[in-house]
Structures are given as C-alpha cells and as structure tokens.
C-alpha cells in the first residue's frame, strides 16, 4: 500500500530563502533512497520553482510566503510550489518562450531546467489567481 506523508513549508519571498526548501527536499529524497544525482536534480528544480514564485509573483516581498508541499509516496516524491499571484491579475502561467530559455533570460532557464530535470511537471493557476507548480520525481526512473 502506498502510504503518503506530507510536509508543508511556508517560505518568505526573500533572496536565498529557496535554499530552505532545497535542503528539506534533499533530506526527504535521500531518506526515500533517491541517488545523489537525482537529489541534485530535485534541489535545482525546487529552487527554480521557488525563485520563480518569489520573484515573478511576489516581487520578493518578504512579508508574502510561498507554500512548498512535499508529498512522499512509496515510489514517488511530489513537490508543489504555490504562490499568491500578487502582481498578476489572472495568476501566473509561463509562455512557451519563457519555457524555452533564452540567452541571458534567467526565468526562461529556470523553467526549462524544471521541465528537463523532473519526471512530471504541471503549471496551474489556482482558484484565487495564484500560481502552482506541481513536480514529481519517480524513484524507479532514477538511472544511477
């Protein structure tokens, strides 16, 4: 039976706060048995999702938190990064150009890395107009 365990992290939108989420997700992933290379992939993807939410939705307003939810399954780890969509009327969703990455375009590279490094990625707009990035990594797909 796949017993799920959930951890919620409320992280202020300040430069460098993404490292709190990175460290926690790495700890969970290592405990679940993900190999080192996949843990590093996960850390980068989670950091980029947090940075995107803090910068583009919250404009690094330290009084506004992002919510990072880690859900552990038997063979999968799901990480959701949710923002409050401040500054975006209809919530946030990346354009195809954002995702491709462009020379000197940090946001583009961040989204590109998330999609390349994770097994599943979904970008959604929540009911209250915020943004949600849902990322999944499967234990059985780990190559090393």
């Amino acid at each position, binding site marked *: 039976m796949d017993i799920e365990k959930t951890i919620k992290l409320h992280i202020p939108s300040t*430069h*460098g*706060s*993404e*490292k*709190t989420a990175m460290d926690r997700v790495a700890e969970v992933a290592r405990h679940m048995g993900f190999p080192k*290379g996949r843990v*590093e*992939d996960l850390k*980068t993807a989670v*950091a*980029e999702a947090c*940075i995107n939410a803090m*910068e583009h939705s919250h404009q690094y307003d330290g009084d506004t938190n992002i919510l990072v939810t880690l859900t552990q399954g038997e063979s999968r780890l799901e990480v959701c990064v949710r923002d409050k969509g401040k500054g975006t009327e209809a919530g946030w969703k990346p354009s195809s150009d954002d995702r491709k*990455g462009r*020379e*000197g*375009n*940090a*946001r583009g*590279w*961040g989204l*590109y*890395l998330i999609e*390349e490094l994770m097994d599943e990625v979904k970008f959604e707009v929540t009911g209250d107009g915020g943004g949600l990035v849902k990322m999944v990594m499967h234990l059985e797909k780990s190559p090393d």
Partner: protein
Amino acid sequence: MSKDLEIAVVVSGDVTIINLDGDLTAVTGQAVENAYTDAVGSGSQKILFQFHENIYVNSGGIAFLIGIAADSRDNGRKVRFSGVSEHFQKIFDMVGLTRYVEIFPTTEAALEGF
C-alpha cells in the same frame, strides 16, 4: 539562507583566475561580471573561473555566466571553468554554456595549454 559570494582574483602568467565560493545568483552575479570586466580591462584575454566544490548556482547566476561566455565568444577571448561539480556540469551543458566554455576538473588541467 543565501550566502554571499566570495570572489578572489589571481593573475598567473597571462591567465586571470577568478575564484568563486558561495552563492552565484541574480544578486551576486553582477560582482562576477565586474570581476570579468576588470580582468578584460587589465588586458587579460584568458580567464579561468575556478568554482569551489560547494558553490550554489541558480538561473540568475547562470544568466550572468551566459553573458560572460557570449561576450568572450564575440571578442575572441578564452574562458575556461574548473572545479565544477558533476551536477553543474550537466546543468551548464543543458543551457548551452559548454558550447562556448571548456570545463576542466582541476585548475592545473585548465591552465595546461591555455
């Protein structure tokens, strides 16, 4: 929390070595670009970025590295990286940095034949 980036510059023959340790991000990347610009202003055409093994690089920092790589390519300068972890070698490859910058495991290897 975010660490600052420590930058130490050493000149070895005709190579300027820029040591990086800490967090390379959108906040600290400008200092790296400034170190590169200063090296170029001093006449250096060969620049080696030496990464500390525990350095953290995010997309904001990557954007600065891409800018430096593009500038070096456009102006015929040689830029090499050393000490980059296996993970960040993969990331740099994914974003296309390795098309313009050669990566070496050690500083000694990077300086050889530079």
